Structure formats: C-alpha cells, structure tokens
C-alpha cells in the first residue's frame, strides 16, 4: 500500500537547522521526491526535488539514501518566516497508472 509519512509537527528556534523526514516505502523506481512549503491561504510553493543522494539549492538541501525509502528535507538556519507547513510528494506505481501521493504535511513552528 502506497503511503507517504511525515511528522505532524515540529518546533524550532531561529538560527537552528531543521530536518524533516518523509517515509515512502513503495516509491516508483524512476520518479523524483519533491518538497513543498505552504503558508496559510496560499498555494504550495516548490522548494526542492531530488532522485538520489544529495541535492542543494539556495533554500534547502534534500538527502535521499540509496534505498530511496525515505528522504530528509534540511532547512539551514531557519527564521520566523520559515513557519509553514511542509509537504513531501512522491510518485507510486498503481497497476498501469502512476499516482502522486502527498504526505499529510509537517507544521513547522519557528520560535524567536
């Protein structure tokens, strides 16, 4: 059964590094893992995407182990403006179809 699992909530303080892990046991072989950030009353915003090992951009890093059954979004030195909900999005093979499954989201609260 395809499932994308992530912690419901996390708390942090300004300046700390935050790591959010998503579990996706049955990920499709050739698909990417994608992370989004969402603020209240706005659409999700793309953060980062990766297939394996490590990907880094100006906002975050994404770590993916060799078995690809999980991924970890790393936000360096968070600020108050990083308070948001973070979703992982993973593709699974469902018979002849390809299905995108969203995690339930991790609500990150960054405190002063």
């Amino acid at each position: 059964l395809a499932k994308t699992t992530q912690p419901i909530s996390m708390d942090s303080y300004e300046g700390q590094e935050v790591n959010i892990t998503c579990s996706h046991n049955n990920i499709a072989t050739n698909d990417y893992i994608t992370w989004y950030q969402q603020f209240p009353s706005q659409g999700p915003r793309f953060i980062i995407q990766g297939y394996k090992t490590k990907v880094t951009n100006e906002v975050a890093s994404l770590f993916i182990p060799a078995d690809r059954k999980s991924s970890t979004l790393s936000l360096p030195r968070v600020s108050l403006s990083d308070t948001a909900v973070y979703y992982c999005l993973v593709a699974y093979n469902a018979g002849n179809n390809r299905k995108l499954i969203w995690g339930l989201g991790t609500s990150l609260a960054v405190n002063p």
Partner: protein
Amino acid sequence: DTEVTQTPKHLVMGMTNKKSLKCEQHMGHRAMYWYKQKAKKPPELMFVYSYEKLSINESVPSRFSPECPNSSLLNLHLHALQPEDSALYLCASSLDTFNEKLFFGSGTQLSVL
C-alpha cells in the same frame, strides 16, 4: 513569468448558484491541475489536463465541471454545490504530467452556504 493566476480569490455561493473558477498560466506548461484542499489537509487531486485534454478525473462529482479552453487557461464550473464542498481550490501547472515540479496559484477560498 512563473505565475499561476487564479480568480476570484474568495467566493461565497448558495447551493443553487452557478459559478466558475478561473486559472491562467503563461509558462508554456502542458499539464494543468485542479486540487481541493481542506484545512490542515494536503491538496487532493481532482482533475488533470494534459495537452488540453482531460486525462485524469479522480471520481469527482458532476457538480464540478472542468474546462480547458486553451493551453493557458483552465476553468472549473460549479453548480449545485453542497456545504461540504467549501474548501480552498488550487490550480497548478507543470511542464508535463510526468513532472512533479508543480506551480500553484494562490487558490480560491470557496464557501458554500
């Protein structure tokens, strides 16, 4: 231009009303999506258009009717909605349906009375 524009931002409608949600993108994306999102839940896929043709309908009730007039526009026609249909309706686009890098609009917050 990397924006997906949705109108209106807010909509209140009665159960007998007919209304339409509009979405526009000028990124040359060939896949466009409608999602429904309830509070504290992830987005829930409703429809996917690929090259202006409906490719996925996630068993959405017929009171929701999508339309893709051209490669830049996507509409969602609403008729005889129920109060439980109140939600944030999000439009998104991507290069194609095999690309999970989705660009979302800000959504339409819909209230059905």
